[in-house]
């Protein structure tokens, strides 16, 4: 299925079922798809598992989604920050599950999901509490830990510009998890600053090819063709 430009953010997250695993792009607020998250809050899906680097900052974006109480579990590398009070309160009162994953494992497990890799061995975390109970193997004299892919039902990411084929370019460090999450979910929704016609992006500069992208929504109103 080729990418579709949606009329609004609600259309881009429509149909998300309860119990879905949702990949949410961003590193802190850079690259966070705030408008798609707000649409998912309106859409109302509950019992969600959220995969993201952090567990929300301040009261907007991912923090606002957590505050609805519709997130059962967070899989992330760095939940605790100066402004993660929404998550902190949910966690301390036992109302949310947490799986802490080393950041490189988070990125690589997403990449593996998108690339059809069944599992991989890595030295990251060997001998630490985060590898407890996991299969290990000595490779080239070094202990490696077996890690499995993380696949999403929905990915919500933010890019800078999309063309109508779904090709994406990003802006500076807001790229972060977008390109790997775009490969790792059954449905990929992207909010962008603007949409251009096919041919409007330099093919040599495309970061995420359109094959990975399902739904695009622009912050700028569509110009009638």
């Amino acid at each position, binding site marked *: 299925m080729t990418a579709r430009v949606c009329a609004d953010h609600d259309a881009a997250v429509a149909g998300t079922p309860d119990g879905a695993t949702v990949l949410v792009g961003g590193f802190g607020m850079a690259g966070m798809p705030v408008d798609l998250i707000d649409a998912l809050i309106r859409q109302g899906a509950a019992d969600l598992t959220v995969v993201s680097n952090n567990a929300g900052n301040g009261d907007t974006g991912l923090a606002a989604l957590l505050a609805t109480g519709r997130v059962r579990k967070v899989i992330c590398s760095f939940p605790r920050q100066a402004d993660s009070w929404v998550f902190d309160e949910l966690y*301390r009162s036992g109302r949310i599950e947490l799986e802490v994953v080393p950041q490189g494992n988070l990125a690589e497990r997403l990449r593996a999901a998108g690339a059809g890799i069944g599992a991989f061995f*890595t030295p990251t975390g060997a001998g*630490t*509490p985060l590898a407890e109970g996991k299969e290990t193997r000595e490779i080239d004299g070094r202990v490696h830990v077996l890690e499995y892919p993380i696949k999403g039902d929905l990915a919500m990411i933010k890019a800078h510009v999309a063309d109508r084929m779904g090709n994406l370019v990003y802006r500076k*460090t807001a790229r*972060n998890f977008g390109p790997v999450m775009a490969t790792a979910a059954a449905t990929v929704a992207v909010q962008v600053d603007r949409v251009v016609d096919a041919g409007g992006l330099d093919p040599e500069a495309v970061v995420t090819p359109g094959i990975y992208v399902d739904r695009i929504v622009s912050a700028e109103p569509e110009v009638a063709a």
Partner: protein
Amino acid sequence: MSTRSKDEIAAAIARDIAATHPDGAYVNLGIGQPTLVADHLPPGSGVVLHTENGMLNMGPAAHGDDIDPDLINAGKVPVTELSGASYFHHADSFAMMRGGHLDVCVLGAFQVSAAGDLANWHTGAPGAIPAVGGAMDLAIGAKRVWVMMTLFDKQGAPKIVPECTYPLTGLGCIDRVYTDQGTFEVGAAGVRALELCGISAGELAARLAPLTPSVA
């Protein structure tokens, strides 16, 4: 002879990076105190700073009109880009670490063992929310992993220890520890002081016991 300030420790690390990598180096500075090292790199050192959230040739902190919310460092502080910068996604950024492409990484620590084990991500205290970020990837991935910390904690207990009591970040991954009271090598050969600041060899041995640090 007095102890070193944070800036003096950072300056010593910057000096050693430049001295050990005369042709330039790819360096990752962990969040917190290690970021001070950037301020002390000598002009023309050729050091290229990597930030885990997807950038090489990161510049200094941004101020005023230069602040761009899409351009931040691993500590989520707005930064600038230098000429020759590049951006890449998280899996590529961590492949640079995990694949052994970074020359030096400088991290903070709660404890370092004599064998070079690192504990820097979690106190394990009840109620503490664990957060690991990129620490475990940096610890096992960079060619040289150095620690910047105080030698003793606020209660006066040494942070170079026979075995880490805090949850581990990585095993045998640290080779050098820069502290306010000196610079130390750790590893298979045990603890060796390269330089002491504000502490005598005798006092060091007494306070690190049962470790028996050698002094260069």
